[in-house]
């Protein structure tokens, strides 16, 4: 979904684990879908952590913890490692997450989030640690992600940090434009390149 991103202020879901791989975000058995049904993927986000083997919700998993909610996921470092499956980004978007905050993201997954208008927000390890503390101390803690100014603010501590995003992707997210739109407008250059390398 091309949902434009500007500024959001919301509570967060803290997923206090490092190296969360895309097999956990959406297990392989859900990749057999041939359509991009975000509702289906969202329902199965973190399926095997969210539900026990008998199909009942696992109360120990944070998505089932009634204290936490909101459209921002806060996760440990190296979020989205492993498989390139874009279904992971579809599942995050389908569940309703608009942004994920971590100290770093796996490269392919980061692009997948951006291509689905879910904003990966890279913060320092110190900021991430404090953010987890704020949220875990008070689940009502709100965080503001301001894409135009590229800042993320922990309203509990008042602390802010600037996050990186390239100008092009920022423009795409703020205006609901994707890469195919750009590339289709650039075909002459591609043919020119092909002629040059012949």
């Amino acid at each position, binding site marked *: 979904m091309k949902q434009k991103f500007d500024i959001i202020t919301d509570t967060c879901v803290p997923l206090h684990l490092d190296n969360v791989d895309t097999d956990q975000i959406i297990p*392989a058995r859900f990749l057999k879908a*041939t359509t991009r049904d975000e509702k289906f993927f969202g329902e199965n986000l973190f399926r095997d952590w969210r539900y026990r083997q008998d199909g009942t919700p696992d109360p120990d998993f944070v998505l089932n913890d009634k204290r936490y909610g909101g459209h921002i996921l806060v996760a440990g470092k190296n979020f989205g490692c492993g498989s390139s499956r874009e279904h992971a980004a579809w599942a995050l978007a389908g569940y309703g997450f608009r942004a994920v905050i971590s100290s770093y993201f796996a490269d392919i997954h980061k692009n997948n989030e951006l291509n689905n208008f879910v904003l990966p927000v890279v913060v320092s390890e110190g900021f991430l640690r404090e953010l987890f503390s704020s949220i875990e101390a008070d689940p009502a803690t709100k965080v503001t992600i301001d894409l135009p100014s590229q800042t993320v603010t922990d309203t509990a501590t008042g602390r802010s940090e600037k996050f990186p995003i390239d100008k092009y992707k920022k423009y795409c997210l703020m205006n609901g434009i994707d890469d195919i739109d750009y*590339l289709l407008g650039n075909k002459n250059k591609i043919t020119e390149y092909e002629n040059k390398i012949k």
Partner: protein
Amino acid sequence: MNTLFDKIWDSHVVSWIEDGPDQLYADRLYCHEVTTPQAFDELRQRGIKCFRPEKIFCMPDHNTPTHDQDKPIVDPVSKKQVDALTRNAAEFGLSYFGMNDPRNGIIHVVGPERGLSLPGMTIVCGDSHTSTHGAVGAVAFGIGTSEVGMVMASQCILQRKPKSMRIKIEGKLGNGVAPKDVALYLMKKITTGGGTGYFIEYSGSVIRDMSMEGRFTVCNLSIEMGARGGFIAPDETTFEYLKGREYSPKGQEWDKAVAYWKTLKSGNDAVFDKEIEFDAADIKPMITYGTNPGMGIPVTDNIPEESSIPEAGRDSFRKALDYMGFHAGEPMIGKHVDYVFLGACTNGRVEDFRAFASIAEGRHKAAGVTAWLVPGSWEVARQIRAEGIDNILEAAGFEIRQPGCSACLAMNDDKVPAGKYCVSTSNRNFQGRQGPGSRTLLASPLAAAAAAVTGVVTDPRTLMK
């Protein structure tokens, strides 16, 4: 500056966006059935065709059963996904190696094997293990489905240029130390996220002495360090491997190609963003004990004590051991094994079957072990038969199945049941990777064979002649 990575990447840049990504031309796009249906839909919705259909090659591999491939797929959902690829390839005019085509197999085994993946190319596929093709000296990396759509629409992808890293491994590998052990060792050292943002060039005497099969294994696992890809400068081993393959250049074109490929190396003055060197003597046969591929140890070592794990990682460490049913500080040798899987884009080539057979020969599969031996392609299956490896394995009580991704990610019927232990030559030991609740121990084909004939985790060196 002036690295081989720079040379290949820069020569494929069509244009660049200021403070944004490069528009990179892709020489090849490989498509399997799992990550492409939504990309084909995107093209249909926009009413566009594939821009350069002759550069796109499709084959199913993830859902394919490893038996009775001449019959329709029984699982209706898997069948629907494979059928969708068959239809899409026909509709968009793309080359297609279907399930009954003798060229079919795992896309990362087939690409090089057909001579489709060549030195100096840029290669993309909606699959993180696309890094495998780097072994021929190509810049190859995995992409998401939206990006697959981009390449279909324009043969280009918008991508920021990664940083470059060189990993040198000097010396000579010890007896029983396989290319897989080299990769597991690197993953342990660099960690599962340490390569993030980088493209890796592998070099040094260990890599130079390595066969193409071994190089595919090492490059395949680059992504498990978080690197976008990994590659090896092409040399005589590469040329020898590619010569005469179906899509490799022929005659004068071949000579011209080799002359060009010989220029593909990092300059003596090349500057990498990061350089790391390892000593082959430090690398032992490895096995993983946890739930990411960086959690490996020499097979003869004990699982680390919690106190040796950095404090920030202890939660994840405990969670991993809890899932695996292991305890800190205990030995891996002697641990019970229920399943053994030989195959995947990591270790599904003929050399891997040779290695497995070298230990299985004259022995017998342990009672209680279920073994899945799955060639990476029909071509590999033919080689196995031609060399008589099938006879050795069958005499030892093993059955060779039909090609596909199989138990690497268990999208077909080859699922490890919950709670069971599988010594696997695949690439990921993530929770539930080989089936919900499955417990995976990653290892080399030698170590997998040692586990298969003893029923417990075993140092393969103790069974080698």
